[in-house]
């Protein structure tokens, strides 16, 4: 854990620890597990009339949809039999269908993709590549009405200690280059940029994208800050990135995109940074849907009742209650946190020390915001105290002297505010 420095006059600077050990380039591989689970977004929490049911045989690379009309799908990362479909409630109350598959001994590839897609086109990418490993924004990039002005490829990882995309730039430069060419072809984007930490600048230059160096200091690596520092603008509050003409995609997804066409198979395994309890990191590759338990076992990381397990990094990840939950296609990291290091929030109220205001990269009056949020005044929070400007870095909670779970309050506030707005819209 990075502690407060002895001298502290300004903002906290969380430097990404540099890993120069040999271990860094080694990628361990988790064998195909006995069971995998996929989460498929399902806002309607349906039980019946589904296309798939327990007992169905599934092949690797097969597309799984709940109903014919659904847009959302997942790509199975294994061959096997569906063991069950249940409902799962995730972060911010999102509902999913959790599809678990018992894997078969022999792997068989579904060849629909191979047969139908020889060359990258917009249509076949939309049809098959909607959940590439590392994906955070591939579909939105493709699915816009007017071509984007700029596509930014993330070669730096958002969170501290995570180095998944950095490793991709370092080790898969050629594939990245091909992916960028394809991307240019099918999207017609004006400019393609790649963000990398300084030490990868020259290597990233080989990819043909416009290289932008980002100092790996948190929160410089957050998408909004990147956009601001390299394009000099932040999208207005009521638009998405794509509407503002900018697309953002992880380097890993670009590589997966290129591999899909060069190899004729939809990539199904994910590269992860695993952050051990002592903050050393290792890289591991596993099939999407592999349970966290399996991955930790590959790396001999022991966890105990009462520890903390996080999907994602220390500042923005999501805690898991069980190690029997899977990694998703956008899980860049797993963090194990020893029970002695778990940060417990307090119910003390704000002492107005101002640390959060100093730390906030979005210039939000967090000290006032937390006061209205604690009193459930979500509309006032959004209207007067810039709730919606929050770029979700978590620094305010990290520095809070009173140890208030500010970030938690903020996310709850955004969620509740969105509900109020939808309710108002449907009443109007």
């Amino acid at each position, binding site marked *: 854990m990075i502690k407060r420095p002895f001298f502290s006059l300004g903002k906290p600077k969380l430097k990404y620890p540099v890993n120069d050990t040999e271990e860094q380039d080694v990628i361990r591989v988790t064998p195909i597990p006995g069971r995998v689970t996929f989460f498929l977004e399902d806002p309607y929490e349906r039980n019946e009339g589904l296309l798939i049911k327990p007992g169905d045989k599934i092949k690797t690379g097969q597309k799984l949809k709940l109903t014919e009309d659904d847009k959302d799908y997942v790509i199975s990362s294994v061959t096997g039999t569906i063991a069950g479909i249940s409902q799962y409630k995730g972060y911010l109350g999102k509902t999913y269908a959790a599809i678990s598959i018992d894997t078969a001994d022999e792997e068989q590839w579904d060849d629909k993709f191979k047969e139908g897609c020889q060359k990258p086109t917009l249509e076949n990418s939309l049809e098959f590549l909607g959940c590439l490993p590392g994906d955070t924004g591939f579909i939105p990039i493709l699915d816009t009405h007017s071509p984007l002005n700029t596509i930014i490829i993330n070669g730096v990882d958002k969170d501290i200690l995570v180095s998944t995309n950095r490793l991709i730039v370092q080790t898969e430069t050629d594939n990245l280059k091909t992916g960028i060419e394809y991307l240019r072809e099918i999207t017609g984007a004006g400019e393609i940029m790649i963000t990398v930490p300084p030490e990868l600048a020259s290597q990233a230059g080989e990819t043909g994208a416009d290289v932008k160096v980002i100092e790996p200091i948190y929160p410089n690596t957050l998408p909004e800050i990147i956009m601001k520092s390299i394009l000099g603008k932040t999208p207005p509050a009521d638009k998405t990135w794509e509407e503002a003409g900018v697309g953002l995609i992880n380097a890993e997804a670009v590589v997966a995109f290129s591999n899909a066409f060069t190899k004729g198979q939809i990539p199904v395994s994910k590269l992860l940074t695993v952050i051990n309890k002592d903050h050393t990191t290792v890289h591991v590759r596993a099939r999407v849907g592999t349970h966290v338990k399996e991955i930790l076992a590959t790396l001999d990381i022991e966890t105990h009742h009462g520890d903390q397990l996080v999907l994602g990094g220390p500042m923005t990840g999501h805690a898991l209650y069980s190690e029997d939950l899977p990694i998703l296609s956008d899980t860049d990291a797993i963090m194990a946190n020893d029970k002695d290091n778990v940060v417990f929030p307090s119910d003390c*109220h704000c002492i*107005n020390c101002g640390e959060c205001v100093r730390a906030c990269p979005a210039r939000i009056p967090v000290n006032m915001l937390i006061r209205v949020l604690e009193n459930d005044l979500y509309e006032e929070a959004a209207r007067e105290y810039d709730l919606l400007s929050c770029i979700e870095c978590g620094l305010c909670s990290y520095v809070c002297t009173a140890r208030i779970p500010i970030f938690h309050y903020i996310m709850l506030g955004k969620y509740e505010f969105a509900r109020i707005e939808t309710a108002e819209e449907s009443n109007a």
Partner: protein
Amino acid sequence: MPDQKLFIGSHAPYWHNGSSISAKSYHTMLAALPAVVLGIWQYGAPALGVLALSVSCAMIWELIMNIAMKRPASIGDGNAAVIGLLFAMLLPATTPWWAVVAGTFVAVVIGKQIFGGIGCNPLNPALVAIAILMLSWKSMLDFNSALVNYEFSFNMVYPLAAIKGFGASAVSDYSTAGLLMGQQPGGIGTTFGLGLIIGGLYLMLRGHIRWEISLSFLASVFVTALLFNLSDPDKYANPVFHLLTGYTLIGAFFLATEDSSSPVNFVPMLLYGALAGILTVLIRNIGAFVDGVVFAILMMNVANPLLDKIRPKAMGKGIKHA
């Protein structure tokens, strides 16, 4: 479920920089220590008595209020102790015990707890208490009569009273070095200029107080006093004198910077400090009180919520969430 291994759920971030309210309180007390120790050394047992009584009373009042208001005991965070300590530092060593008990009651109960406890007080609790004492028992805080039984090698006339009564020539024998080394009468913990500066620097560099407030306060005291001094050098003391006497230094580093009653945005912090500094010198030079720090800071405390509305525009984007 056969597997009963469960993990702790909480929201991001999973790290914390390790700061806490109690650490902040203890660092504040540590920073006050040099000035306090010199006070004890100068004024002996009575000073120690006042300090000890004040700190313990403040903590007891806090505990009583915690129980009365059915809140978890909060004396562990050290904030009450800090209030008690700062209050005692402002007092002359001869303050009677009942005044200390009453003062800490005002500070902790009226100044802090009835507003809802730490972080909710609109005014600096220690200053509220001292202001009430100043208004209710005027002579108690007249340092000339309070410390009349002390005999030191240095001039025992309270410098701010001297200049108010007799003009700049009356204070010509206070040397800057002497003032820095505490050779002046005054509150127990307010006279040792160098000690307060060291403590203040420590707090600023460690980030426990907001340096913007302290520095703008001092700069503005200096500038305002300088203007007065230039206009009439016989009547008004030089700016360095104003910086090193009365409550200026303890005000800059320990009182004006109290978290809850001061602003947190950059421009408001500068304004707050600067206006408090101007008011201080105005009160001293042309106002009714010998020292202006107490009322200057209290007035700015009142203005704080308004001042802190001046703030930068937040970043122009909200992230969409389904």
